[in-house]
């Protein structure tokens, strides 16, 4: 595939036909994919999709049925075309785990397309971020223009747009909050957006006590417009809510997992409002080496051939009775050799001290042919990078970027934005490095725990893979895992997120002013008393007592006796 084609793929949204439903009714589907990874982990992905047949133009999003009204209101008020949010704890390890269903950056990530009718995109973006902060109990209120970019290539609309001829990234906003710590308080509001809440159905498995003990947990909210019929004469609103978890067998204590071990309890029936309630267990790791025993017996085995990858899935239709899916491994266990996926990336800092440093992104192409990728870097304004130091090397050779988009940052106003289109040579490691300076901030700009450091968000490496090896992502035309079976396409989009980095900016000693205040106050207090006394009081000599000691004693005795006689 030429680069040109790639860019077209990224640029122009597909007006694909929606395969979920053609009826006028709203639909809701709940699915759970369990995939034992080739390494010592288990991947669990919850996928909830709501489809709302609504004509966006003449509806005010107030009357919803299965669709969460809170989201509808936000969409209506801020003129949002598409909205993608992820809240993630931990890092998806592409090298050992393969590809997830939905990629997400560590921390919080949000991107949105606004409708072309929007007059003030920046204002709407700020308002949207504030509303989301309330909706999901996350720090989206810290999203503003100083950490937002509008990438040219990396984030094109995922759904249908009827304005593809004037598709313009001025209506796109992308921001990350790498410092965000994701926890229970983010999960609870997400569960409330589901039609059955967490009371019934697969969502009842989302037990925060258990799911935050994982190596990776990510919640996502993805809203887009899709065609409501095959002819695509009307458009519907689609909301995907997802929860991705990666359990580690070492932490779990056993390889023989079951719902009870993973989530604390089994499943008690499905959500009655759902049209599809399925559980899939990926059997591909069982097929190769370690045969595990699945209990209970699955209802169906689906074989999916997708992009050269054949995989078997055990399908469970959720019964109305209790269900506890589990596997049992044989006693003797073989360690498998991990085969890394076609493309994965790392990011790290170079240098030491607090003068100069560098950001290095390493992209591994393990595929047998060259691959085209787009790298997006959104670097905060307090990390001033120098474009002339940007070097791209692969195997000792210098690589020229096909396209380089750069917009310099501005202190406190705008982040540094770099987007590079590259052609990676076959079986290569490509290094993209750029140098930066450490800067001083104003003293109010340091966050609490200032010595923890400042975060640089992850880079996003987007690529269209020719093969679906180790790939579980959803095709663009589907919102369900079921839709990804046998879904061979011309390319498979992955958007790899690299590690966050933490840098130590020169930090003042914040306890010093406190010490100074203490010292100054002590000095003032000590000086003030005597000075005040000296200036306001007059020293007068006291009359000297001429009495002798014996006289004194005598006097005291007399006084004492007098008192005694009085009281008697």
């Amino acid at each position, binding site marked *: 595939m030429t680069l040109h084609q790639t860019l077209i793929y990224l640029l122009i949204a597909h007006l694909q036909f929606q395969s979920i439903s053609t009826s006028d009714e709203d639909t809701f589907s709940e699915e759970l994919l369990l995939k034992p990874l080739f390494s010592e982990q288990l991947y669990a992905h919850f996928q909830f999709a709501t489809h709302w047949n609504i004509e966006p133009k003449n509806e005010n999003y107030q009357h919803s049925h299965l669709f969460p009204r809170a989201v509808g209101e936000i969409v209506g008020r801020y003129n949002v075309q598409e909205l993608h949010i992820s809240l*993630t*704890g931990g890092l998806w390890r592409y090298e050992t785990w393969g590809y997830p269903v939905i990629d997400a950056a560590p921390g919080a990530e949000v991107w949105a397309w606004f409708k072309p009718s929007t007059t003030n995109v920046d204002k709407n973006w700020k308002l949207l971020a504030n509303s989301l902060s309330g909706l999901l109990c996350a720090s989206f209120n810290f999203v503003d223009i100083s950490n937002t970019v509008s990438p040219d290539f990396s984030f094109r609309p995922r759904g249908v747009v009827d304005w593809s001829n004037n598709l313009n990234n001025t209506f796109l906003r992308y921001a990350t909050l790498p410092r965000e710590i994701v926890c229970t308080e983010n999960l609870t509001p997400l569960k409330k957006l589901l039609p059955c809440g967490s009371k019934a159905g697969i969502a009842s498995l989302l037990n925060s006590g258990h799911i935050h003990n994982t190596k990776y947990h990510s919640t996502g909210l993805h809203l887009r417009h899709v065609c409501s019929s095959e002819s695509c004469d009307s458009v519907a609103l689609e909301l995907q809510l997802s929860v991705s978890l990666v359990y580690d067998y070492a932490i779990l204590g056993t390889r023989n997992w079951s719902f009870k071990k993973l989530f604390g309890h089994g499943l008690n029936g499905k959500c009655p409002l759902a049209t599809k309630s399925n559980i899939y267990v990926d059997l591909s790791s069982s097929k190769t080496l370690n045969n595990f025993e699945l209990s209970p017996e699955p209802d169906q085995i689906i074989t999916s051939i997708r992009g050269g990858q054949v995989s078997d899935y055990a399908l469970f239709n959720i019964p109305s009775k209790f269900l506890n899916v589990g596997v049992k491994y044989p006693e003797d266990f073989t360690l498998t050799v991990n085969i890394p996926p076609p493309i994965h990336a790392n990011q*790290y*800092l170079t240098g030491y001290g607090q003068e100069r440093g560098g950001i290095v992104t390493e992209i591994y192409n393990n595929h047998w042919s060259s691959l085209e990728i787009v790298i997006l870097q959104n670097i905060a304004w307090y990390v001033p990078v120098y474009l002339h130091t940007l070097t791209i090397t692969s195997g000792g050779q210098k690589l020229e970027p096909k396209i380089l988009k750069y917009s310099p940052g501005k202190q406190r106003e705008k982040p540094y934005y770099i987007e590079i289109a590259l052609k990676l040579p076959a079986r290569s490691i490509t290094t993209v490095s750029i140098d930066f300076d450490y800067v001083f901030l104003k003293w109010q700009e340091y966050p609490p*725990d200032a010595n*923890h*450091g400042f975060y640089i968000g992850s880079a996003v490496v987007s690529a269209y893979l020719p093969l679906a090896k180790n790939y579980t992502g959803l095709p663009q035309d589907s919102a369900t895992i079921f839709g990804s079976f046998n879904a061979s396409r011309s390319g498979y989009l992955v958007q790899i997120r690299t590690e*966050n980095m*933490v840098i130590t900016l020169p*930090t003042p000693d914040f306890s010093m002013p406190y010490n100074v205040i203490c010292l100054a106050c002590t000095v003032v207090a000590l000086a003030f008393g005597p000075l005040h006394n000296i200036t306001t009081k007059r020293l007068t000599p006291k009359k000297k007592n001429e009495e002798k000691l014996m006289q004194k004693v005598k006097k005291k005795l007399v006084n004492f006796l007098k008192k005694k006689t009085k009281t008697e």
Partner: protein
Amino acid sequence: MGLLTDPSGDQRGIIWFASLASPLFNASTYFSENALLPGLVKSTFKEDRFALQYFQELQDETQKHESSIPYSWLLAKFRQIGLDSYTHDFTLHSPLNPNDTYYGKNVYGILRAPRASSTEALVLSVPYRPPKSIYPSTLPSIAIQLAFAKFAAKEKYWAKDIIFLITDHEQLGIQAWLEAYHGVTCGNEGTLNHGTLKGRAGAIQAAINLELHSVKIGQIDIKIEGLNGQLPNLDLFNLAGKICIKEGVFHTFKGKTPKYFRDPYKEWLYSFKNMLNMVSTQATGVPNGNHGLFLRFGIQALTLEGFEQGKAGSRSGFLSIGRVIEGIFRSINNLLERFHQSFFFYILPSHDRYISIGLYMPAVCMIAAALIIKACAKWCKMQENHTEIRYIKVVIQFIVMHCIGATVMVFPELVKALNSDVSSTVSYGLPSVLVGSLLIPFLLKSVNHSEGSLNLLCIFGLLELGTALICLSMNNISLGIFCGTISVPFALIAEPTKNRIFKIVQALFWCLIHPLSILFFVVSINTFLMFHQENITEFVFRALDATKQAVIYSIADSMIYGNWLYTVVSTIFIPNWLCFWNVICSDFKRHNVNVAKKNN
């Protein structure tokens, strides 16, 4: 003038410094960082069984590899435990002989913390020593490292990745790994080729280097002195001590525990000896363990060295040692911010007391102030006497001295560039350059000195020495105190003189404090302590040979690790020494009829 010409400032400084060892003048250590919460949790490590098993396997495995690291076995173990495991290759082009190349291989595994996204990391490192190594074995530490990895892999509370690092070739391995991790070269370009790393884990917050020589540990010595005299944060040192106490492991600093005497003098002497022990290690600027190389990168690190024989009766097994490691790592894991509280500059007279920078700096300042006051006094006196001064000549002379120093500094580089064997050329070339430079005052006879010019040169020398001492002790207090104590008394009495005997005495003394002579004395004392049965001639030759080795090692250290001892000595102390040498040995004509008043 009485106060100004009184050179006893240095005596006061030295007395001040020495008295700091007494518990009356220093403070007991404490935890400054609340987030550490040391020893608050119940230890749960019980993988000591595995440690023993690993140890036995490892003993068998090392027999197969005489001089190389058994990396395949280590990689397999790391992978089995569930770590991301990698190897790291590095090459050293010998700084002393350009044709010599050495190869090394480090092995490391990264435990990915479940509670974070690889933004921060901790390191547990062990130097690997093959059976042929001259150093005591560290196999038990690798065994406990693996057992701890096995334990840590199933815990869910880690918020920082843990890197388990096994390094090859002692300090070279760790230096190469750190350089590769940070993508920088610290020494000379082309000397240590640090290679590349495949796996990383964010900013490293702290590192513990483990050197256990036995399965049963009688005592653990905590080592802190790093490259160029850098020290780890005092909180980390305190933490290691506190956890050792909690787990009942006998621990020491410089092989000693605090002792309590009734006699304050004895108490002071005991602490003072201990303090001198630390000062002498720190002054060399050579790390006394692999931890010392982390410090440059802002990573707080220390070495726990375990010996079989301890002063306490009982010995601790793998269980207690594992729990010590667990305690330390869980504490550091609690840290929200990197180490920034407590002290980075301190001297320890014992492991529970410290002398902070605020206490020891006045001592150095007093010593240096004596020089500066002396310089002022000289200047004032010169103004009174109206002697003839040739400013330009003095400045040129001063610059020439420093050019000689610079030549000494780049000498090994030049030799290396000429592609000849550095060690032999340097061992003959360097002394000849230095001896040659001794002749300068006699060669410059024709310059026709005046007393005033020599006095001015002396003033320059005094000011330079004073400034250098203060700057030096800001970075490496021990080196500063050491240089100050030795050179300042002599520098204060250095004076251009016509009196032959006084001149010869001065010159003799001044020769004694030439950096090379000092090095020779220090090395001789060391040699004497090690081989005191030998006869005199053998001893002198051995000491001379050791001195030669010391110079060459310091050159190699500066080229590989970026140790600046050689640079500082060659660019500041040698030129400064030459200045005074010139002052002492030059002949001059006395233009003034009035004999200048001598001060004592």
